[in-house]
């Protein structure tokens, strides 16, 4: 078995183990026997309802969204040739979050549960427009990063404004809690909404693996190797908007997965950007499933928000990376 296949297999098993673990956790104490019986379709009705209607969609969403965030992080780090890049750096997560907040603020979210994710996806695409306009003139990654920072800042200001002018404290809390990211109370409806977005997003990313490898030699080097960088840019921006937009739409903003996971798996790869894509997606799935299991197992009254927990896991890892920054990644 090749080295790359081995790491993929290990990460797949890890992700599945984390997801399985999270199936056993929740406010209702079921015990593993009942959970496994329910999964197999031979459990009691209560256990089956809890496992199939509440816990399974949640575990699947953690895997899907984690995979998207990890894969997008790896792709963007390769594309921008910047180890600090993540889906947030292009402002996509922020504009998607702003879309969601708009849905909450103006009450669209109360009309239909699908309105919130729909608005978030619209937000992700709307964020692409200024990005493409601002970055269209130059080939370099710096313009994209700066444009992304500007867009993220503007979207963040918009979210703050919504909190600022919230009609009542409950509305502000509703916006805040959604924004901090969570997978609580999600259903298969959300899975079916996120799945196509994430499948398209990850698919587009995998198509560009070879161009990312060529970019190891810089833009001109990649062009000389026959890469079509305009296409690559368009594909990756679309992948991020569709995939991360779809992910943020159902989960709210979840930070640090896209930044940290590529760093965690990179030492186990041959460091080609393309060889990082699948391990990062699998690692992201494992990390988010683990984080979602963690938020349900801490004995607090209110479940801690998922975005908070991933950041709490992410920051020490990130700092560790910074300490070792003398070595190039």
């Amino acid at each position, binding site marked *: 078995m090749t080295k790359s296949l081995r790491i993929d297999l290990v990460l797949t098993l890890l992700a599945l183990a984390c997801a399985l673990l999270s199936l056993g956790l929740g406010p209702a104490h079921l015990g593993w026997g009942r959970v496994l019986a329910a999964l197999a379709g031979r459990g009691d009705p209560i256990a089956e309802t809890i496992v199939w209607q509440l816990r399974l969609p949640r575990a699947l969403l953690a895997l899907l969204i984690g995979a998207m965030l990890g894969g997008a992080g790896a792709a963007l780090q390769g594309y921008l040739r910047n180890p600090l890049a993540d889906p947030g750096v292009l402002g996509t997560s922020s504009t998607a979050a702003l879309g969601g907040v708009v849905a909450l603020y103006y009450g669209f979210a109360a009309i239909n549960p699908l309105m919130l994710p729909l608005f978030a996806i619209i937000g992700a695409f709307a964020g692409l427009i200024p990005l493409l306009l601002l970055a269209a003139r130059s080939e370099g990654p710096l313009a994209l990063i700066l444009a992304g920072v500007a867009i993220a800042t503007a979207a963040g200001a918009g979210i703050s404004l919504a909190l600022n002018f919230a009609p009542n404290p409950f509305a502000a809390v509703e916006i805040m809690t959604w924004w901090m990211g969570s997978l609580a109370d999600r259903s298969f409806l959300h899975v079916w909404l996120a799945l196509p977005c994430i499948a398209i997003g990850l698919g587009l990313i995998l198509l560009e693996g*070879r161009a990312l490898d060529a*970019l190891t*030699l810089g833009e001109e*080097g990649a*062009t*000389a*190797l026959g890469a079509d960088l305009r296409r690559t840019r368009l594909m990756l921006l679309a992948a991020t908007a569709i995939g991360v937009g779809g992910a943020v739409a159902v989960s709210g903003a979840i930070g640090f997965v896209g930044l940290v996971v590529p760093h965690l798996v990179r030492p186990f790869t041959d*460091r080609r*950007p393309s060889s990082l894509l699948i391990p990062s997606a699998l690692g992201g799935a494992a990390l988010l499933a683990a984080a979602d299991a963690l938020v349900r197992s801490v004995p607090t009254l209110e479940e801690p928000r998922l975005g908070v927990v991933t950041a709490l896991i992410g920051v020490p890892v990130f700092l560790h990376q910074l300490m070792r920054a003398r070595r190039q990644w």
Partner: protein
Amino acid sequence: MVRLESVSVTLGGRRVVEGVGADLDGGVIGLIGPNGAGKSTLVRAIAGLVQTEGGILIDGVSVASMQPRDRARRIAYLPQGQIVHWPLTVERLVALGRLPHLAPFARPGEVDMRAIGHALERTELLSLRNRPIDELSGGERARVLLARALAAEAPLLLADEPLAALDPAHQIDVMALLRAEAARGATVIAVLHDLTLAARWCDRLLLIDQGRLLADGRPAEVLTADRIGSVYHVSAFIGEAGGEPLIVPLSHH
């Protein structure tokens, strides 16, 4: 066969290359001229990386009209001061040279692996093949990047200052490698600054100054004391040592 038909390049409103015309067919062709003469820009133009006026034809096909992958299969380009963004191993980096030859999603096949192995062997990098590039010395890195260009096995090799950062022994090795590429049938165009090496190893020299082609011919015809004086603003000793040409710049005037 590379045909340059009155090639001009304008960068940022400034004419950097002006009406260069030449037929380049086989051998090692040295591009020489002072800093800022437009040598690198001309090489990038031939590689299809900058917009040009006039025509650049390879085997009768215009570079501008080629599909990117087709162009990459015909032209291997070794830029000056190549940055490598990720610490790949030597072998993985050299393998990048095969990208234009791979079908979508295909792994490198037998032909590719042979080309990679051959390039590593010729640049004496076999023993370093599993080392990450960021752990190598400047000279070793330069050889790896050259090996990457050789692995493409393209009929046209463009090398922009392939001797920079190399000690004399490795300079000679690289020039010998470029000669071997030419012997294999490739056309090699190299930007050079060392006039003695250029005179000794090149079949033909193109002298560029202020974007224009000043002289084109055999080294002994191009490198006259008068020309070196007027283009480089130095007086130079031109002689022979052991039957090989020797050019020593003496003083800046």
